[in-house]
């Protein structure tokens, strides 16, 4: 790092040093960090709703219900993050695996099938079934380029609900499978009930924690590095000996596993599965959460998914309530008559997602909570430009010191190889 550059960015350096210390610490004890972090967050989520202003917005049980539902999307976002963020495969049909997990649980635990299997093993089985389908649906896409991959996964994402819809003899078609049995009671925490979602909330917190630990370990492992390599340059990765086939399939499988987990949980909570819960809007919502949260950053997408879901379920409804307080009059602009009082913010949900997605892609593609690596990747062009701008400032080279270290004495017109140290692309790291 040259003196000039250090002189120009002192504050950033000190902050960076502090941040990197925290980061190092958390990276060394990653699982512990996750446990502690999730514990703190869970405790916050348990106790905050008891106090104003939260207890004025929703009742306590409704908060737990919302948290449990948010957890489903957190799981989905973390899973899609593996496929899109880590491995760089744009999967637009993610809801298909969600559906498979949900229907698997429905088949094993409903009056329709007559079975009633214990819940925790079903979590594992549902995830495994989804993983199998992840491999099956990912296999044909291996040779495809990014955009074709996207369209094909979109196709699969559409096909799976259609199949569930049309095979009426096996799935009861559009009516879905209802009356699904809830999980058995958690000792010490309570029953899983429609009106007592606290047990669901605790269960979901546990699942998210375990999933996070697992995914972080994966990210730091050989597989995770292979994913990074494939995402950045597949040809180079293959040339370096990475088996792109198994790596990609593993990405699909793991993404599907997480979605399967979420599906089993969601089926056991809603007690009804029907094909219209799994259309493209779900895939799109999860994709929006991943993009907003920060592709590639596991806790980033989790936080992003949670925030977006809370906005969707709580804030938009609150906006409606506030709007009612204003008693708006209809707006009359010539031929346009707009009844402002009838605006329903909850119906703007997908419009907001679309705008957010476009805005993010244009302004901040690395998301709200980006991982450093992705930010560098997406802004490498900007960084190179910035570094060149920096280099126009005068840089002092101590030629005498350099010459003495090399045992030479440069002439007045000689330079070494025409470059100065500041010319290294990418600056310091």
């Amino acid at each position, binding site marked *: 790092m040259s003196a000039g550059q250090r002189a120009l960015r002192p504050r950033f350096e000190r902050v960076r040093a502090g941040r990197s210390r925290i980061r190092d610490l958390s990276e060394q004890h990653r699982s512990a960090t996750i446990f502690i972090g999730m514990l703190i967050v869970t405790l916050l989520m348990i106790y905050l709703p008891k106090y104003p202003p939260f207890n004025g917005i929703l009742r306590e049980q409704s908060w737990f219900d919302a948290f449990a539902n948010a957890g489903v999307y957190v799981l989905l976002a973390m899973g899609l993050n593996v496929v*899109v963020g880590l491995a*760089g495969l*744009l999967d*637009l049909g993610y809801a298909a695996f969600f559906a498979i997990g949900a229907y698997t649980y429905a088949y094993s635990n409903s009056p329709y099938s007559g079975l009633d299997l214990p819940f925790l093993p079903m979590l594992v089985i549902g995830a495994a079934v989804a993983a199998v389908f992840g491999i099956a649906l990912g296999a*044909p896409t291996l*040779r*495809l*380029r*990014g*955009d*074709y991959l*996207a*369209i*094909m996964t*979109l*196709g*699969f994402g*559409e*096909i799976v609900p*259609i*199949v569930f*819809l*049309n095979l009426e003899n096996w799935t009861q078609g559009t009516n879905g499978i209802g009356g699904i049995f809830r999980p058995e009671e958690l000792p010490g925490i309570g029953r899983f009930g429609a009106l007592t979602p606290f047990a669901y909330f605790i269960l979901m917190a546990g699942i998210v924690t375990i999933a996070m630990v697992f995914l972080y370990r994966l990210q730091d492992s050989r597989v995770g590095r292979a994913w990074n390599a494939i995402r950045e340059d*597949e*040809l180079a990765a293959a040339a370096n000996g990475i088996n792109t086939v198994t790596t990609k399939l593993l990405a699909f499988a793991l993404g599907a596993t997480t979605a399967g987990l979420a599906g089993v949980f969601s089926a056991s909570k809603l007690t009804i599965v029907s094909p219209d819960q799994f259309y*493209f809007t779900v895939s*799109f919502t999860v*994709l*929006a959460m991943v*993009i907003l949260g920060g592709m590639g950053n596991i806790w980033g997408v989790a936080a992003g998914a949670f925030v977006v879901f809370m906005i969707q379920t709580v804030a938009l409804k609150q906006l409606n309530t506030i709007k009612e307080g204003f008693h708006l009059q209809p707006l009359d602009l010539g031929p346009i008559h707009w009844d402002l009082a009838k605006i329903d913010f909850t*119906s*703007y949900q*997908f*419009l907001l*997602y*679309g*705008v*957010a*997605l*476009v805005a993010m*892609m*244009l302004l901040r*593609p690395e998301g709200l909570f980006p991982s450093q690596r992705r930010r560098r*990747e*997406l802004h490498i*062009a900007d960084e190179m430009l910035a570094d060149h701008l920096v280099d126009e400032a005068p840089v002092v080279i101590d030629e005498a010191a350099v010459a003495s270290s090399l045992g030479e004495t440069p002439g007045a017109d000689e330079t070494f190889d025409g470059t100065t140290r500041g010319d290294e692309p990418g600056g310091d790291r």
Partner: protein
Amino acid sequence: MTAIATPRVAPNTRVVRIIVIAFAAVLVYALILWRALLFAGELTAGNSLPGALFHVLTRFDATGNAFLPQAIQQTVNALSIGAIYALVALGYTLVYGIIELINFAHGDIYMLGAFASVVFLGGIMGQAAGVHDLLPLFLLLIGALAFTMPIIGLLNVGIERAVYRPLRNAPRLAPLITAIGVSFILQNVALTVAGSGDRKAPQIFPLEWQIPFGSASISVLSIVTFIVALVLMSTLQAFITRSRLGRAMRATAQDREASSLMGVDLNQTIALTFLIGGMLAGAAGVVWGLKFGYVKFDLGFNAGLKAFTAAVLGGIGNIGGAALGGFVIGFIENFASSLGFSRWSEFLVFMVLTFVLIFKPTGILGQASGDRA
């Protein structure tokens, strides 16, 4: 470009390919009529396929109707719906050819075209029902097209300028995701403004204008939609092959840097591509409104996917391919519905997409492009 001899697709290979496809199509037709044969009970041991076909064409079913009229009516219907898909598929293929972006929002552009035509015919012109006089009908049709096509074309250009151009050099994921975002924005704008139910589209073509044909009746509307699409497609073909701007588009699609070195204005060419794509989608929207009598905010999404499948099927980047693909998809969907599998039509279309992408990603008429990694 390297000096390796790139295999030219010789004309006779082309002809052979077309013959093979035509034969396959006739075979499929025969199979479909075979099903009719089964119903007709003509499948006895002695009947050969041509003989059975002959029987079917003249055969009467239980209600005393010959199958040929129904087959013709279905064919006309398939042609008209295929025409709509072809028009939309052309937009996809043009844009993909030039900037290698799957414009997810294209289907919703087409939906907006349908809405625009409803605004024109219903709102501005105040039409509600069929118009029975030829001259006003013709004028209204031309008027709807003249109103919708420029507006939607310019909208498309505007979207490109605002959203896709800044991302032209970004990693490939970015414009794709942005396109999805734009698609949802367009859908939800339509949803907010027009509501979520079906909106009535004035069917200025009187539905009673049918050409009776045995037991079937062919609606003049279907014929007109096909003709409109055909006219537009031939105009496009002429423009692309003969005009200077069209040549610029083809050059840019082939090699962006080289064509800009040759003096082609990249931004202008891309804008022109989006303009043309948007105009075609707008025309398709007008045709939809006339044919089906309703518009809805989400009609673009599914139709867009099918049209994209059509473009891929025909060979992405290839104009004739997009048209061909559109008609093929139209036929597949139509016959699936008529055989009672209408619930599976989307499934079938995606299966087609899957097979094409796995086994022949360049499509029917496409040529091998460079990398596929």
